[in-house]
């Protein structure tokens, strides 16, 4: 197994590299067709899974939170992302610790590792200067932190919008995915029209 899963050619001058975070993997685990569609689309590019995301999923899976079952399911759906990458270099760990504090922003942690997955991704991705890193995240604060470190963030909903606009899914399919996320309490209700137009309020930002 290679360090960075790769099965597609470089799309542009800088190759896209997707870093899915804990929240996005949990969202994908809610609805298998959504997971399969995202996996099929992102598999055209390089993908990186960081150990901190796996650790966060493990922490969530053994918690008594409502998303424990989805976190457990997500742990069983990680093969397509390749072997997890550690973040243990001095500059990376220091930056990740700072970013974790920034994303948490004074809010009490729901579990010991909360936000360490996103922080590790941004720390690693923001220093991958020869690549074009994209973070898939359903955490608004993590997306803001990513954007400020030149890592392009997308929520699952924003990815759906992009997929509609590039003909990867129909608006009706995207609506069924969004509806599943809404029913699971993972997001507000969005219409097919909103998904197609990209008028997605907070999940479309930044």
């Amino acid at each position, binding site marked *: 197994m290679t360090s960075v899963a790769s099965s597609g050619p470089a799309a542009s001058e800088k190759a896209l590299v997707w870093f899915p975070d804990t929240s996005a993997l949990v969202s994908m685990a809610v609805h298998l067709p959504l997971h399969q569609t995202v996996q099929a689309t992102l598999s055209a590019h390089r993908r990186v899974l960081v150990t901190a995301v796996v650790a966060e999923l493990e922490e969530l899976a053994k918690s008594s939170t409502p998303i424990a079952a989805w976190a457990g399911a997500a742990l069983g759906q990680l093969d397509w992302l390749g072997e997890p990458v*550690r973040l243990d270099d001095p500059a990376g760990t220091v930056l990740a610790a700072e970013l974790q504090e920034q994303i948490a922003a004074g*809010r009490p942690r729901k579990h010991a590792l909360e936000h360490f997955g996103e922080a590790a991704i941004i720390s690693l991705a923001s220093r991958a200067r020869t690549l074009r890193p994209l973070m898939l995240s359903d955490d*608004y604060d993590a997306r803001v932190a990513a954007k400020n470190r030149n890592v392009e963030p997308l929520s699952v909903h924003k990815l759906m919008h992009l997929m509609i606009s*590039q003909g990867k899914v129909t608006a009706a399919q995207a609506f069924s995915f969004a509806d599943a996320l809404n029913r699971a309490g993972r997001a507000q209700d969005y219409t097919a029209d909103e998904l197609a137009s990209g008028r997605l309020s907070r999940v479309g930002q930044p």
Partner: protein
Amino acid sequence: MTEGLTGLAALGVPATPLESAEPEQHAAQVGARVAAARRRRRLSGTELGEMVGLRKDQISKIESGRRRLDVAELPHFAAVLGVTARYILGQADRPALAIAARLAAGASPQVMRSARRRARQLFEIDDLLTQVTAMPPVRSSAEGLRVAEQARAKFGTLPRSKAAAQRQGRELAELTRRELDLGSDALGDVAGVMEQHFAVDVALSPLGTDADGLCVHSGPAALILASSDFPDGHVRFTLAHELAHHLFDDPREVIEEAERDMFAGTAVEWRANAFAGHFLMPERGVRSVLEWLGEAPNAVSERAVVALMEHFGVSMAALIYQLNIIGMVSYSAGQQLRGRGVMSLVELHREAAPSGAATTVGHVRRPPERLARRALAAAREQRLGLSVVASLLERDDDEQLWDEIMAGHAQAMLDTSIVL
């Protein structure tokens, strides 16, 4: 968890010289700190390993710098060893974070836990906003500086008697009103006045009724926090009382106030209460209101008590305390008034207290203005996420909050150059 693939190398990206500088030395330093903290906790390598999900030989390698800590392992080590992730990484605590850490670590009565937790959160947010938005430190006004300087010069010695303590409190209150040009009438926004002039952040939060509040001051940082689960008049007295501790340069870094603390029979508390009384209810102002109410000199009626509470925005206990201090109500008459019960008096003279502000429990959530202003701007500009605002405002309705704070603000458009 696998230990195979690491960092930028795993992505095929070369590290910069800075990033690759002396990782072994760093790992050895991290390891030494882990070992020192483990020994302080009197844990064996095996015990620590069991607690963090690693083998004894892996702990040994970490402590000797032959295995680096993954970022996901940091919080477990920090929690088990009773230190911060910053300590393990060798990052110096910045001032606000250092105070927050001491608030977390310090022994505290059970009744003060929620106040300490909120204070710690506010110091962490202070640090975050300082780092991300280059927020300048809190500053005094020129008038406030003059008050602080005179307070240090005149009242550096702790008074020995109750009378002397009360005299000091009164003198500082009168000096403060004079320097700030506040006259002798009621103060409106006490928290705002304190923030405007005295380099102090002021927060109100519903913290229950076991504790009144606290004052944390250390170097240039100062925070006064009061529980808003009391009637507003009570809260205003607590704020003024804490301001006294700050202005008198109380040597304690954390001053915690349950009701028994505020009325403890000590010079420090007598002085702070006298300051609060004279700051909120100056004698000249009280006499002026009584004259307007047509009260006979040195005879304060029940109705006048209710009207004074309304006018100065204070509790009946604080008012009677002050009326006694300035010689307008005897101790026994004060006790009689208190025995009538504040609610029955207010009910009886409702027309004299139409707003009932002094007796209303507001459960107000007021973050320090300096932090709130910065956090809102940073959130709108997407330099920070929503959590910082939600933490400050103590809200958990993120969607609604986002709609409120982002209304009318430009938002980023989708980058269509991403080709899936």
